[in-house]
């Protein structure tokens, strides 16, 4: 690694490394301390922790899928549309007089996979710009969501799946525990398997990866499918949590999902998209937003906080990534 004056000594080097790795984690801890002192009766409570964890499940599921596709060097702006479309599709199909919840869930997940395949067809095969393709796909899915829902709010029929999504374990919604399971799987695959290494190789340099034998096309297609599939799962969880669906339900998740993933890329393995970092990033946003709300601060401050954090995170991820590649 290229040494800079500030990291000349081994001790300084260690401290800089530590700060690089854990600055976002430290920020989360600092915010928790800050808000706990300011609002001990409302912020520093088990109930608040349970609420934060339960309500972040959907964002985390989307974020984990997005981590994979960004690590592969692509991007996916259709995720919000996939969440909306799959949420509406599942709700519409899961009525007992239609397909029932089991088949509806399978059809919805297949729809997610197909959307990922269509995205990858255009991005990987046709070599169309990923930004435009996925943006267009998101718009297309928004339109289809309105068509499937007939532009109405749809009530989700009661089902065992619906009940499971609403159930709690240690006071925290089951979707959060499912998200933790998903996190472990994604983390293991990315960090400890050849597939994960191939994904990172592909993301850092497609030609170089191709030259060392990585099947780049397959990796990229898989990443795009995983992203869409995660968004489809998030759509089902979202309507399960709320009990209803309507077009556009997933749209507000797009920016926070990217913010979480880029914040994650600035921590633990700085400059590299990583699933644990994504979870930490989402927690930073959730803790910050919740704390500011409990302080009763004007809502524009919350937006400034979220936007500002994202800018800092993107800049940090870019700087750290460049430094890591130089090293």
């Amino acid at each position, binding site marked *: 690694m290229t040494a800079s004056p500030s990291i000349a000594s081994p001790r300084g080097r260690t401290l800089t490394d530590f700060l690089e790795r854990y600055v976002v984690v430290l920020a989360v801890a600092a915010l928790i301390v800050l808000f706990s002192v300011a609002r001990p009766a409302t912020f520093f409570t088990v109930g608040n922790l349970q609420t934060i964890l339960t309500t972040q499940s*959907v964002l985390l599921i989307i974020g984990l899928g997005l981590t994979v596709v960004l690590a592969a060097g692509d991007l996916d702006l259709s995720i919000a549309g996939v969440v909306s479309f799959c949420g509406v599709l599942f709700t519409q199909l899961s009525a007992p007089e239609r397909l029932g919840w089991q088949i509806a869930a399978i059809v919805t997940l297949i729809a997610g996979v197909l959307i990922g395949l269509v995205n990858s067809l255009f991005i990987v*095969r046709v070599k169309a710009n990923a930004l435009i393709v996925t943006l267009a796909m998101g718009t297309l899915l928004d339109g289809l969501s309105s068509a499937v829902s007939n*532009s*109405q709010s749809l*009530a989700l029929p009661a089902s065992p799946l619906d009940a499971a999504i609403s159930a709690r374990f240690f006071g925290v919604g089951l979707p959060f525990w499912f998200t933790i399971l998903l996190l472990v799987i994604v983390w293991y695959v990315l960090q400890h398997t050849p597939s994960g290494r191939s994904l990172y190789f592909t993301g850092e340099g497609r030609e170089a990866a191709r030259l060392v034998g990585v099947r780049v096309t397959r990796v990229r297609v898989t990443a795009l499918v995983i992203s869409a599939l995660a968004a489809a799962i998030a759509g089902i969880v*979202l309507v399960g949590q*709320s*009990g209803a*669906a309507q*077009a556009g339900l997933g749209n507000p998740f797009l920016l926070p999902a990217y913010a979480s993933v880029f914040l994650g890329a600035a921590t633990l393995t700085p400059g590299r998209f990583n699933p644990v970092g994504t979870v930490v990033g989402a927690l930073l946003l959730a803790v910050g937003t919740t704390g500011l709300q409990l302080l009763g601060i004007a809502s524009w401050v919350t937006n400034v906080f979220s936007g500002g954090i994202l800018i800092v995170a993107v800049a940090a991820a870019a700087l750290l990534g460049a430094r890591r590649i130089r090293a």
Partner: protein
Amino acid sequence: MINHFAPRSRLPLIALAAGAVFALAGCTSDAPAAPSAGDSSTGVPASVLSDAQSLVDQYSGIPEFEAPGDSFDATPLKGKSILVVVFSQQAAQLVTLADGISAAADAAGLESSSINADGNITAASAAIQQGITQGVDAIILDGVPAQLVVKDIAAAGDKDIPVVASTIGTSYETPGLFGLSSADYVLTGKLMASGAIVKADGEAVTAGTLTFTNPAVPDALTGIQEVFDSCGSACSIVGTTNVEPPDWGTGLSSAASSLINGNPDINTIFAVVDDTMGLLASAGVDATSNTGVTVVAAQGSGAGPLGVVQQGGAFSIDPGQSAAYTGWGAVDQAMRAMLDLEPGEDITPPRYIDTAVLKGLDVADQDAIYGNAYVDGFTELWGLSK
């Protein structure tokens, strides 16, 4: 790896995909098939025109306070806490409503706090859960689509925390809600239709409607249709286009243009919320170029839309109601819940607003348009008047 998709072979694929997209779009269009246009040679029956004029006259004055239920003593509630979940502070009407809630809470000695959900249903859900965790005494939903947070409303109910919804219409029923405070959007729809009939002055009214996914929209359409049904073939809706809020900036103008160009008989556009009016100008339906089309909006909120109506021209009718009044009504409902009383009938009375009504008024001053009789009315109802 061999690329099996050489550049020359991509064109048919792209063409195929484009065709599929267009086919999908065609198959899933939510616009209903246009019925035959109203027979413009047939005028509106005189009795219908007279009824329309009567309804317009009835609601053209500043609304009076209408007690939603029996009076009660609110003093025991001093110090109780309410949480207001504002669906989006980007919507002027919801901000005005939140201000009304805050003012009413202050008047009643309640402690109020608010959370902005930023248009995110999960954030709204989290906000309700936070209210439950904090143990607030009541939760007021400000524009939150209650049907999308039914489980959170039920969770609040499990903790004996009443939930009141506002601005979602009065005919909507959500399990677990204690009560509503809202405009009667069916009546608003009737005022819209009546205004259009009066404006057409006996000529046939051929209308297109611009809608979006919102619980109040079906109510407004019901009101419009009820008036049109009495009109026979002289009043008709020949096209409806749904444009969701994120697409308003780009979609409204083209939707209005398509409606007008596709149906030359159209002389009225019903825009179900008035926030959309400014965006319709580029569709050629503006105040300066009189195309013979009248834009009839609803909600009567905010200086921007009302300023457009005040200028006259095509944008000339905008019945609405005071959002601040609705906010006071929401607090009234919340207090009734906290006192274990029956829910009130908190329906915000509307005012028929057109260019003539707004003449000489400061459109930024809601009190000048809707009055503030509700402030004294509610404080007296709550036993708090000095």
